[in-house]
């Protein structure tokens, strides 16, 4: 990671905490402007690899946007505001399925997404069922069967 790259990344989220870890640069910015991030990372030649959702105790979801370019991995960690974050799909097409999956698993809303239809969620489970599994796991657990 060159100095100019680091400066460009820092400019995306001026109030962020930047950590250089063994698996790349981590930018921790709870109030991140994700649309500005998507535009700038696209301009810098980074590819959106995926997003990771993490259920938070207050009902919000932490989201990590993982970007990759030759020799560089950058991870932006932010959180939803009122259960939502603007969709980055209009800027980065690769975000489409990723945001649909996060919606299925964590119930996050992405205003601006062109088609936020269920992707992987089985019809009998409600949106955000990963959250249910963490909070009320018995609802997703079948009765244990012991060998007779």
């Amino acid at each position, binding site marked *: 990671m060159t100095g100019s790259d680091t400066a460009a990344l820092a400019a995306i989220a001026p109030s962020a905490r930047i950590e250089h*870890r*063994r*698996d*790349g640069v981590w930018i921790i910015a709870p109030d991140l402007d994700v649309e500005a991030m998507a535009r700038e990372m696209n301009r810098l030649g980074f*590819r*959106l*690899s*995926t997003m*990771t*959702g*993490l259920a938070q105790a207050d009902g919000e979801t932490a989201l*990590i946007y*993982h970007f*990759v*370019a*030759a*020799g*560089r*991995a950058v*991870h932006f960690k932010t959180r939803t505001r009122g259960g939502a974050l603007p969709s980055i799909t209009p800027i*980065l*097409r*690769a975000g*489409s*399925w990723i945001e649909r999956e996060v919606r299925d*698993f964590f119930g996050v809303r992405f205003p601006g997404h062109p088609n936020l239809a*269920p*992707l*992987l*969620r*089985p019809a009998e489970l409600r949106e955000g069922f*990963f959250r249910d*599994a*963490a909070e009320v*796991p018995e609802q*997703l657990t079948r009765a244990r069967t012991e060998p007779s």
Partner: protein
Amino acid sequence: MSYTIPIGPYHPALEEPYKVNVQCGGDTVQAVSVEVGYSFRGIELLAQRTGWVQDLTLIERVCGICSHTHTTTFCRAVETLAEIEVPARAVYIRTAVLELERLHSHLLWVGLASEYIGFQSLFMEAFNLRERVMDLLESISGNRVHYGMNRIGGVNRDITDPDPIVAQLRAMGEIVERDIVPSLTESPTAMSRMRGVGVLTAAQAIEWGVIGPVARASGIATDVRSDLPYGFYPELGFKIVTQTGGDVLARVAVRALEVLESIRLVCAALQDLPPGPIRAFEGMPDIPAGEATAFTEAPRGEAIYYVASDGGATPARVKIRTPSFVNIPALEAMTMGQQFGDVPLIQASVDPCLSCTDR
């Protein structure tokens, strides 16, 4: 007249359970939409409720083809998180098995592609070679599919006699070079069926964010082995394979040439196998609180794992992103304006794995 034809989720034209809705005007494809999720197993959730060691058995079953890729990536994420240094010999063995896995995956795909274009003799040749790779994997690990080679901090089994493996691979490499590569890249049968079909331009490849052989066939030189090097790929002199056609033929050529590169890498890894232990410790240490990611080049492209720990007996979060999840949506761009009869071949050229995609 425009009409929509649903292919799948269970259909002879598809190797895997997913649905391709094809809207046609005459024989020309006007629009495509893809539906997945028919094999959703909730492996990420299960991994968060299973122990660190048991998770290896679970995660190996994300895919029946690139199973070692998944355990390797999970182990690498955990080892990064816990700052575990893996012995060099273990990393070489992991790398050799990763490349053997790529070999049998690519040969499987070459066989399927041959069958799709009606090239039955090449299908049989490719599957014959793939069977020999499976035999090698069985001789190393005791298993044909889920090898059980990885453990956190190293590998479970040593490779004590690499010479016969190297000799067999060299013999296979000669057959691939003499028969398989020319049959796919020079024969009129293959070229007339695959050239210009299902084109994904370099600009489209970037727009859709595709990875692995699909991206490299469109001239995008991206490969985790060179972009974010791990293991001993730099020491082994890894060479990235690219083509510029962006069509089915280019995707075939990339995989065929990567078979040769994988054979070279396995031979190099086994010939330079460093002495020393094959695991950093016996048993399983406590995994401290923290988070980490790992990237590995699976046969179909980049696999990424995110692992978080709260210091407990199970991971707090395991996120799995497989390459097919990224490549399958680009079918929309590849099939637009193509002949309906070419859709089965085009979707196959992505080498879609729904076991991986749905998890």
